[in-house]
């Protein structure tokens, strides 16, 4: 008897990992992939912009690969509605797609701020492959680029902009850069680093109008002054693609609410990635973690459960790393937990910053900032992830870390973190080759 008919909605990281996992686990049921775009990786678009890779490199599954997996495709199609009673998905061409179980992995979309003029052809998001192509075509070596929004997405393309444009100005409405990735002290350090490298940063500034000015654009601030730009990049936030679920009965908050099996309130409907609101591994609360590793883990766990395994997910760990002009910055878990006990230190001569956050003996979050050369001379980036992930008891090591905040290897080793981590796998078995 053939297995269940799986419909996967979305070909991003969550959707593709789900397809691969179904086949890796020996599930031979029919798979239908419905996706607005052909499969590619958003994560590597900054390297396309920086001309380190060409367009074929961003593809994550070729037609041949999907054929090998026996995936029936509806590419270029969006879902417009869901009837969970009839177990049917309604597509934008009016067609219905029946499923035994459904994975919703529709991801998220970039927001365009409600600034008059923001729809101008020289204003871009940097979210889709088409966005990346548009920016890549328009940017020029003498261009002045203005980035509106100083969050993670902006920072992933900062190196590419610096390589391909003449000048960069970053405008952020919050009082400082990277408001959702690092803390005030870290942001101050990064700001100084970038200013020294010729980047203009204007935080706490709101743009009220964008208008054509000669060949380029003029951006007017709330304060009344203005700057001219050849190209404007908008990265002011993203929103899960949920609207099409209105009236479907699928329970949502910020995202689709999912249980430890990545299942929604409807038994045979799963959700994964940016569109899912699942358990936070550190706090236990349900949150949307719109990051690549969460999409990958969600996709694999959902697929394992769709394949009939009963695999519970301990929750996703918030983590980010980005490098800007040679300065690496990474944060893990509850790095912004106001109620946590904090150990923080700077080594100003090395431009290095560390912050560790504790709840009792457990490290619940961490921030690391330092020059790339320093980061990769040690094991600390991953070890911090291991400490937060494993939740080992560091009670006996807090005084050590307070005295020697840059020596985390010893507490990592001595608390047996490795022994705690070695048995852990995401889907309850060793990962086969990808």
């Amino acid at each position, binding site marked *: 008897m053939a297995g269940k008919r799986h419909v996967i909605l979305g070909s991003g*990281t969550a959707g593709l990992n789900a397809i691969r996992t179904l086949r890796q686990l020996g599930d031979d049921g029919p798979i239908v992939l419905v996706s607005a775009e052909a499969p590619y990786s958003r*994560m*590597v678009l*900054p*390297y396309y912009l920086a001309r*380190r*890779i060409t367009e074929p*490199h961003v593809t*994550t599954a070729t037609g041949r690969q999907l054929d090998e997996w026996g995936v029936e495709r509806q590419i270029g199609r969006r879902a417009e509605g869901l009837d969970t009673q009839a177990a049917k998905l309604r597509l934008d061409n009016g067609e219905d797609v029946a499923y035994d179980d459904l994975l919703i992995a529709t991801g998220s979309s970039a927001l365009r701020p409600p600034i008059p003029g923001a729809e101008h052809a020289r204003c871009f998001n940097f979210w889709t492959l088409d966005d990346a192509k548009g920016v890549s075509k328009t940017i020029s070596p003498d261009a002045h680029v203005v980035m509106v929004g100083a969050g993670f997405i902006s920072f992933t393309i900062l190196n590419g902009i610096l390589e391909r444009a003449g000048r960069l100005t970053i405008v952020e409405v919050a009082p400082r850069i990277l408001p959702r990735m690092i803390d005030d002290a870290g942001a101050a350090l990064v700001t100084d680093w970038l200013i020294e490298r010729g980047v203009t940063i204007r935080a706490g500034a709101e743009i009220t109008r964008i208008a054509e000015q000669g060949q380029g654009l003029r951006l007017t601030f709330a304060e009344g002054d203005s700057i001219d730009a050849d190209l404007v990049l908008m990265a002011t936030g993203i929103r899960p693609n949920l609207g099409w679920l209105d009236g479907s009965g699928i329970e949502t908050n910020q995202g689709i609410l999912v249980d430890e099996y990545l299942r929604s309130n409807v038994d045979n409907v799963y959700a994964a990635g940016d569109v899912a609101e699942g358990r936070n591994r550190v706090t236990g609360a349900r949150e949307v973690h719109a990051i*690549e*590793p969460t999409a*990958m883990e969600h996709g*694999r766990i959902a697929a394992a459960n769709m394949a009939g395994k009963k695999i519970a997910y301990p929750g996703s760990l918030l*983590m*980010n*790393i980005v*490098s800007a002009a040679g300065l690496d910055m*990474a944060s*893990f878990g509850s790095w912004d937990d106001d109620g946590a006990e904090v150990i923080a230190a700077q*080594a100003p001569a090395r431009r290095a910053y560390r912050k560790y956050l504790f709840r009792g003996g457990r490290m619940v979050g961490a921030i690391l900032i330092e020059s790339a*050369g320093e*980061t*990769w*001379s*040690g*094991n600390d*980036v*991953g*070890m*911090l*992830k*291991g400490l937060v*992930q*494993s939740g080992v008891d560091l009670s*006996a090591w807090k005084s050590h870390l307070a*005295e*020697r905040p*840059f*020596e985390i*290897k*010893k507490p990592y*080793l*001595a*608390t*047996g*973190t*490795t*022994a705690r*981590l*070695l*048995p*852990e*796998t*995401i889907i309850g*078995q*060793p*990962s*086969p*080759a*990808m």
Partner: protein
Amino acid sequence: MKVLSISPERCTGCMRCELACAYMQSGAYQPAKSVIRVAPLEMHTSYAPFTCFQCDEGWCMTACPVDAIAISAVGAKIVSDDQCVGCKLCTIACPYGTIFYDEDTHKATKCDLCGGDPACVEACPTQAIEWVEGDAADWLGEFAARRAGTDLTGLAAVE
């Protein structure tokens, strides 16, 4: 499967493993290019060589957005330089801190078990690193824990 078994009590801190590894990985005798790192304990009176466990999950491999990490014939998770874009995602996914980023090549770099003939094993004069049949284990935990309270007194920490 064979694994790199580490006996820290035999390590003298001579760092030959790091030099051999760096040479195998990059063709240069630069310890910064080594993917085995010898941690000094007790103010440099004992040492703990630390490298990839080739763990079951393969956190680096599953995290890679472009499938640049594969499993070799000898069970090593190996980075394909052609595929790797240098996004560093693997370096925050690996909870052991044993995959690195090479600033010169813009690629991730990690232990590939030298294709089945690990240079660190050959270079170690005291058999602190051995290439043996078995499972990966926490080779250093107890050793480091025993030495936790024995920092030499009266000396300032070297940061």
